[in-house]
């Protein structure tokens, strides 16, 4: 039997988990230049539901944790092709056109338009992961060799026992873009073109759009879209912009991985320094953590 035993019940774990889950908030905006276009997103997510389960194989399972997007908007900035009129042949000849009418381009430059996409309806992620608990003895890298524990405490360089959740398996399926994603893009482009052509009368807008051709075709040409737009969008935001990794990282960091869920100073203070007297600290050894069906148990000996 260890000198010191501390146990936390599964109910305590669940209560703690529910609180942490409810307090979770993550907001981020980013964009990237992807060659023929730029894309970006603004995301603000919360967490819902999910269960935590302590398992007899020394692991903790968090399952069916839903990501609820309060805000998830994307934008795709594209240079739409220049639209010009004129340029027709005024004076043809058997050897070709002798004189052409000057071309008059409607836009001074290739116009940038930003397609705003409300992607929240498509973010239906459910996260599950299993992690095993482990302990690590952390020696502060800034602590010079040979520094005694009192000097380390004076300089904030104490060693620590740390408890981590080491994630073993993560299941994160971030997007579920439906078939209507194409309509979404077309509607966004229509809105963007209308904004761009805002000062023009209706007939002029229709004429410009007619010259552009079907807007989705225009976007397809600019963005080099494949047939399955939903997959493309998923790749764009999930992979190219790194949202899947980002959210997975945020969640895993949040539920431990890099951040220890508990830190115990070593040697552990028993009596604080007082009136010039040194603190009384005792070394902890054999620090272990394990999980049963009912509880998490941390054990240590006094060295």
């Amino acid at each position: 039997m260890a000198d010191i035993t501390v146990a936390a019940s599964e109910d305590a774990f669940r209560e703690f988990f529910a609180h942490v889950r409810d307090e979770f908030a993550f907001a981020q905006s980013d964009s990237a230049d992807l060659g023929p276009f730029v894309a970006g997103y603004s995301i603000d997510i919360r967490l819902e539901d999910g269960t935590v389960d302590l398992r007899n194989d020394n692991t903790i399972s968090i399952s069916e944790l839903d990501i609820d997007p309060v805000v998830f908007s994307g934008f795709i900035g594209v240079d739409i092709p220049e639209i010009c009129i004129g340029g027709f042949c005024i004076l043809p000849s058997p050897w070709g056109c002798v004189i052409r009418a000057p071309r008059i381009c409607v836009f001074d430059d290739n116009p940038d338009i930003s397609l705003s996409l409300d992607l929240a309806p498509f973010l239906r992620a459910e996260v599950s992961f299993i992690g095993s608990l482990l302990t690590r003895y952390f020696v502060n890298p800034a602590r010079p060799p040979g520094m005694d524990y009192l000097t380390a405490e004076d300089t904030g360089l104490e060693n620590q026992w740390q408890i981590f959740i080491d994630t073993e398996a993560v299941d994160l399926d971030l997007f579920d873009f439906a078939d209507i994603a194409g309509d979404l893009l077309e509607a966004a482009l229509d809105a963007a073109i209308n904004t761009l052509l805002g000062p023009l009368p209706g007939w002029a807008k229709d004429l410009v759009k007619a010259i552009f051709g079907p807007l989705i075709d225009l976007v397809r040409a600019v963005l080099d879209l494949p047939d399955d737009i939903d997959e493309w969008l998923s790749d764009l935001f999930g992979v190219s912009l790194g949202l899947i990794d980002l959210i997975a990282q945020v969640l895993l960091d949040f539920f431990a991985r890099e951040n220890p869920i508990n830190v115990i100073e070593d040697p552990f203070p028993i009596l604080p320094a007082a009136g010039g007297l040194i603190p009384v600290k005792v070394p902890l050894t054999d620090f272990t953590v394990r999980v049963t069906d009912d509880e998490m148990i941390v054990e240590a000996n006094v060295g």
Partner: protein
Amino acid sequence: MRTAVFNQIGLDSGALGLLGSLVHAFADPGHYVGTALVGDDPRGEFEIVVADDSPPSTHIDLSALGRLRRDPCCNPDQPAFRVAPGGRAVFHVGGGHERWAVLVGEPRSREAEFDSRSLGHGDLFAATVLRPGTYKVRNAHGSGSTELVVRYVRPGKEKYTPPDPISIGMGSQASRKAVRVGPAQGIIFEATEKARIVVALVEPDDGPSGDR
């Protein structure tokens, strides 16, 4: 965005805007001087040298000549254009809202070689009409006239490409009584005698659901 393109409803060969161009052929070698005008106000001068070893055509932006004159400090030399004998000069307006005319003649000659307000035989007026509707095209210096209908196009499944240009002779009468074109389709008027070609909107077409 150049919204002025859509604001120029109607064209006039004697008051050239963004959507029109004039083509005049210089048959004989020589040295000509030209003046770009807005109304009767001269805004810029230039030279045209018609000589061998010159290109078969030259483009002259009247609005650019006006800008040069307004900034004499940096462009002291009068611009000169070259064209081969029998070659053509294309006069057009590259920007702005103003309507331009051009007058070209030999120095010390009272007779104009080319006056855009009064086209001569063989001069061409290339027009682009964007606004859908029914227009009346008439020769202000004669009796020729015709009806021009610019149809309405709506965005559809197919990309709209303006059809090939059409040609209409204009003098004491027009070579075609009625013309139906698509928006932005080129219309090339050829003066068969003294002419000033005016394209005026008679009845706009705002599409099936009206102007939106």
